[in-house]
C-alpha cells in the first residue's frame, strides 16, 4: 500500500513538473516598465505560442487562403510591410494605412494607428475581417481550422480541447505576438554598459533627447500616446486618425506614436507610409510641419538641426536595430508545423 502511494505521489510530481515546463514567462528587460498585459492572469504557454506562430504564418486566415499575418508583418522587416506606402492585402487590394511594425506589444494599451483595438487578444479580428486585408470571418476561420489535419491536435495540446473556438484561435495569435520582444539593440548594450556609442552616435543621442524623446520615450521609444505630428492631409485618403474612434474633435489628425526600435528596417514611415527614408522624415520635422489646431505642442517651435546633426541623429537611430530580434528563429516561419 505504502509503495503504491509513493508511486502515485511520484507520478503526480512528474506530471506537475511536465506541466510547469509548458508554462513560460515574459522576462521584462531590466529598466523597462511593467507590461500593460496581465501575464499573471493570462500566463504564456509554450504550446499556445507555437500554435499562435503557426496561425500567424498561415494564409488560412484569409478568405482565399493567400494572405497571412506575415504577408504584411514580415519578421525580417521588424514585422511590417516594406516597399509599400499603403499595405496591400487580398487580391492586391490597397488599404489606407501602412502596416505597423510589431514588437514589444505587451506594453501597448491600444492597438492600430488610431487605437481602435483595446486588447492584443482581439487585434487579429481587425485585419481578418477587413475587406482589403484578409476579407474573412472568424466564424469561417474556425470551420477551416477544425477541418484541417494539423490544427485540432495543436489546439488540444494548447487548450486541452481539439474543438476549436474563436476565443482560443485569437488567444493563441495574441500569445505569439506578445513574445515579439526587441530589447537587444546596440542602444540596449550601451545602456547595460556592455558597449559604447561612437562619437557620432553619442551626439545623435544627445540631439534625440533634446528633440524627440518626449514622444519617443525610452526604453520603448514611444509614450503610447496619439499625436498630430504636422503631416498634411492626403486628400485621396482623408484619414483623420483617432477622431474616427474617439469622436473627440481634439483627436483630429492624431495617430499613434510608433516605436523607433528597428526603424532601419520598418520603412516606409508614418501612418500612410509617405516617407521612404529617415532623411525624408527628418526633413519633415525640421521644415515640413503643417500647423493646425491639434498639432502636438511639442512641434509648435520648429526643430532646428544642421545637416551634420541630422546625420548624427540618424546614426543614433540606427543603434536601435536589433538583429537578434529580426532573425530570432523562434519568431520565424514554423516550417516544422506548416510544411512537415
Amino acid at each position, binding site marked *: 500500500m505504502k509503495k503504491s*502511494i509513493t508511486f502515485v505521489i511520484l507520478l503526480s510530481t512528474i506530471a506537475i513538473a511536465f506541466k510547469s515546463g509548458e508554462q513560460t514567462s515574459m522576462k521584462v528587460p531590466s529598466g523597462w516598465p511593467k507590461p500593460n498585459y496581465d501575464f499573471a492572469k493570462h500566463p504564456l504557454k509554450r504550446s499556445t505560442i507555437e500554435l499562435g506562430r503557426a496561425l500567424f504564418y498561415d494564409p488560412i486566415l484569409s478568405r482565399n487562403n493567400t494572405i497571412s499575418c506575415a504577408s504584411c508583418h514580415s519578421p525580417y522587416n521588424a514585422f511590417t510591410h516594406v516597399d509599400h506606402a499603403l499595405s496591400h492585402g487580398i487580391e492586391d487590394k490597397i488599404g489606407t494605412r501602412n502596416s505597423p511594425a510589431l514588437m514589444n506589444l505587451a506594453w501597448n494599451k491600444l492597438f492600430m494607428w488610431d487605437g*481602435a483595438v*483595446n486588447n492584443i487578444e*482581439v487585434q487579429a479580428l481587425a485585419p481578418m475581417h477587413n475587406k482589403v486585408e484578409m476579407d474573412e470571418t*472568424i466564424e469561417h476561420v474556425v470551420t477551416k481550422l477544425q477541418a484541417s489535419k494539423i490544427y485540432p491536435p495543436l489546439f488540444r495540446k494548447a487548450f486541452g480541447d481539439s474543438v476549436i473556438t*474563436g*476565443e482560443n484561435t485569437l488567444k493563441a495569435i*495574441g500569445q505569439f505576438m506578445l513574445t515579439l520582444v526587441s530589447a537587444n539593440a546596440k542602444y540596449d548594450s550601451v545602456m547595460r554598459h556592455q558597449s559604447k556609442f561612437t562619437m557620432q552616435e553619442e551626439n545623435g543621442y544627445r540631439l534625440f533627447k533634446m528633440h524627440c524623446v518626449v514622444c519617443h520615450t525610452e526604453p520603448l521609444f514611444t509614450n503610447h500616446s496619439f499625436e498630430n505630428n504636422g503631416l498634411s492631409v492626403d486628400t485621396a485618403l482623408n484619414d483623420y486618425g483617432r477622431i474616427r474612434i474617439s*469622436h473627440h474633435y481634439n483627436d483630429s489628425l492624431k495617430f499613434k506614436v510608433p516605436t523607433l526600435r528597428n526603424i532601419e528596417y520598418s520603412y516606409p514611415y508614418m501612418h500612410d507610409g509617405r516617407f521612404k527614408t529617415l532623411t525624408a522624415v527628418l526633413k519633415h520635422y525640421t521644415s515640413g510641419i503643417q500647423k493646425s489646431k491639434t498639432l502636438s505642442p511639442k512641434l509648435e517651435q520648429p526643430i532646428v538641426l544642421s545637416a551634420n546633426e541630422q546625420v548624427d541623429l540618424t546614426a543614433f537611430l540606427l543603434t536601435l536595430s536589433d538583429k537578434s530580434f529580426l532573425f530570432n528563429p523562434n519568431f520565424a516561419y514554423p516550417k516544422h508545423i506548416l510544411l512537415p
Partner: protein
Amino acid sequence: MRLLLILFIFHWGEAQLVAQPTKVIPLRFKPYFESNSSTLLNTTFHFNSADSIHFETLRFYISGIELQNQSKTVWKEKNSFHLVDAAQENSLTLLLTIPKKLEYNTILFHLGIDSNTNTAGVLGGDLDPTKGMYWTWQSGYINVKLEGKSNLVNTTSHAFEFHLGGYLNPFQTLQTITIPCIQKEELTLSIDLKQFIELANLTGTHQVMSPNEEAVKLSKLFANCFSGK
C-alpha cells in the same frame, strides 16, 4: 489511506448538508410586435393603416442578472452573460438556479456588456467573437442587433440595420433594466418592438453601426420596451 477516505466522505457529506437546496426557474424573453402573433422574425406586420414591417434579426446580450428584495440584492448570477437570439428558440429562455426559499420582488439585469468585459481581451461561450456580436474594425461588443425591412425606410431596399453598442463615454450604451416581479415558477419578460419602432423614427434613422449619439438613444428606447407584462 482508509482513514483519509473516511474523512473525505465525511466532509463531502457535511458540505452537502450545509449547501442550500436550490431550484431552477426559467426566465423567458418574449419579443413581439403584435401580442397575439407567435412569431416575430420573417412575418410581415401591418400597422398604422398604411405601414408594414418585418424583422430578420433580433439578437441582444443580457448580463449581470440579479434578484432583489425590498431594493436589496438577494441573489446574483455568476458569470452572467447570455446571448438571446430570436432565431434560436432555446436562447429565449435562461435557466436561473436560485435558493429554494429565496424571497424577491424585483429582477435587475443589464442590456449589453459592461466596460470591463469589453476590455478584457477575447472571451468564450456566448461572448466568443464567432457569435457575430463583436465589432471587428474596432473593439467592443454589439449589445443589440435589430435588422429588417419597412416601408418607413426611404431607400430602395427599405432595410434598417441597428447594431447598438459602445462602452466608452460619451457613447456608453449599456442599459440597466429593473422590473418588479412576483415569485412564480417562471418569469416572463416581454419586449414590445412596436413601441420601439414607433419611437425610433425609421424614416429619419435606419442605419446605426457604430457607437454614437443615435446608438445611445436607441439603446435607451430598446431597454424601455422590456416589461413584466
